């Protein structure tokens, strides 16, 4: 019973992938053998998943305008080349006065943020690596199944609720990778990056609509490292990334997706369409800029941009209410097209 209580307290850590490998495996071993904890774990996962139903809300445009106005920077200042940091020029006239006022506020209130944290300067430890070796598994327990990708079906049935996804590349030279995850037990699927079962599994991880953002971000980073190699190029991976780019509510995830698409070649028409859609419709200008960079990469790699793409670029370059950076980037890309 005491073990169940301890296990219960560990479940949030399991959900956030914050447990070490040994603790995680021990936890799963217990959950598998304890009906009460298995039910509890199922409820935790359902709760975590339902929390994902809260949509992202867009920031009203007036907030940015007010911010830029407050600090004395106009929207147009974003496209003015920066002054050299070695030989800084004079600041805009409003700034020294504003800064003096700000300094006075700092002195008066003693600093808002750091005053409350003066004994703990903000230092963030590096994140733990997400790539772990199968060979170093300290436990050889029955609940961790290692399956070869060639032995399982590439058709994933029933939209399984997979959790705690981790990626494995024990030996970078052997062209074998692995994906570990929890389903009804801990499973590691290993195989070549080009193996269809692995490709489908990775695509599924990328596309799952109830995936937590950190898992999806990790998945995208890992896909980028693995599938940027032209020898591993697979259109299904590119399609999955394109869906993430179109559908994910987290802008950070969409940015990662477009950055990954940028590095993948050769680009399919689906990839190009997804980039165009992002450029036209994504609410976040950072994503739109990344989409432009990706299109620029395609053009430089010799991919001919079709009339639809060029029309979109022209529209963006001349759109009055578009972010100035997006407009400049679109114009630059148009000028690069022969």
């Amino acid at each position, binding site marked *: 019973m005491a073990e169940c209580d301890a296990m219960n307290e560990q479940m*949030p850590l399991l959900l*956030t992938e*914050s447990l070490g490998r040994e603790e995680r495996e021990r936890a799963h071993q217990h959950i598998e053998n304890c009906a009460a904890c298995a039910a509890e774990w199922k*409820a*935790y996962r*359902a*709760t*975590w998943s*339902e*929390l994902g*139903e*809260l949509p992202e*809300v*867009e*920031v009203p445009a*007036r*907030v*940015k305008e*007010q*911010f*830029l106005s407050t*600090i004395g920077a106009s929207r147009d200042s974003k496209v003015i080349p*920066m002054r050299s*940091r070695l030989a*800084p020029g004079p600041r805009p006239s409003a700034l020294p006065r504003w800064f003096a006022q*700000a300094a006075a*506020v700092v002195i008066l209130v003693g*600093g*808002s*943020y*750091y005053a*409350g*944290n003066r004994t*703990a*300067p*903000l230092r*963030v430890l590096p994140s733990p690596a997400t790539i772990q070796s199968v060979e170093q598994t300290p436990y050889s327990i029955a609940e961790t199944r290692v399956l070869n990708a060639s*032995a*399982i*079906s590439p*058709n*994933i*049935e*029933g*939209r*399984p*609720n997979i959790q705690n996804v981790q990626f494995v590349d024990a030996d970078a030279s052997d062209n074998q990778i692995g994906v570990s995850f929890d*389903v*009804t*037990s801990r*499973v590691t*699927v290993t195989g070549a990056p080009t193996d269809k079962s692995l490709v489908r599994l990775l695509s599924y991880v990328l596309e799952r609509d109830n995936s937590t*953002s*950190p898992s999806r*971000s990790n998945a995208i980073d890992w896909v980028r490292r693995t599938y940027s190699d032209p020898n591993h190029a697979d259109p299904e991976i590119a399609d999955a990334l394109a869906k993430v780019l179109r559908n994910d509510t987290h802008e*950070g995830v969409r940015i990662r997706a477009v950055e990954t698409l940028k590095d993948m070649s050769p680009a399919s028409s689906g990839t190009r369409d997804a980039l165009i859609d992002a450029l036209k419709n994504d609410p*976040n*200008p*950072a994503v739109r800029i990344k989409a432009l960079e990706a299109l620029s990469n395609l053009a430089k790699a010799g991919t001919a941009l079709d009339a639809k793409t060029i029309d979109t670029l022209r529209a963006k370059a001349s759109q009055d209410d578009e972010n100035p*950076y997006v407009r400049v980037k679109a114009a630059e890309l148009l000028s690069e097209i022969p």
Partner: protein
Amino acid sequence: MNHLSDQELMKIVQAGDYAPASEIYDRYSGRIYNFAFRFLKNAEAAEDATQEVFVRMIKYASQFQGDAKLSTWLFSITANWCRDYLRKSDNKAKEAEDVLLSLPASSEYSPERDLERRESELRVKRALGALTAEQREAILLSRYQGLSYAEIALIAGCSEGAVKTRVFRAMETLKKALTADVGGGGRWLNATR
């Protein structure tokens, strides 16, 4: 400027050039606003928080340490602002104003699916609203921002142990409030080819 890292942009700001302010805003305003909106449950206050966080970022740029993550620093400022806001008794009364505020229906889904999503959204909002401010802060940073417990501890000004406790208690409360049918399994893994 979008090719520069957060640290590089902040170095420019620290040197007195505010040209990167817009770029930094574009990178983080969505996360900051959503965090504040969910924490305070008040759209107007979330707008004020977002604007003030970026103004403070400029004001106190010199205090940003280059080896820290900008996101963590910005969330620290945001959380401080939000806590101050909630401390004021007048503001507590405003908390529930936006709880029932729903987003426009999305044409992306069928009417039935759209209704389901909106009901689910409402359930989640109510459940989050039942948490204490500390628990809500911890769960929002963990679940929606994907921050580690160490990062949340820095932001909340408490120990990692305290963060674990807050997340645990929050999850216990949320679990009671939310129920969902978890489907799927690993059947396909048993299908050989």
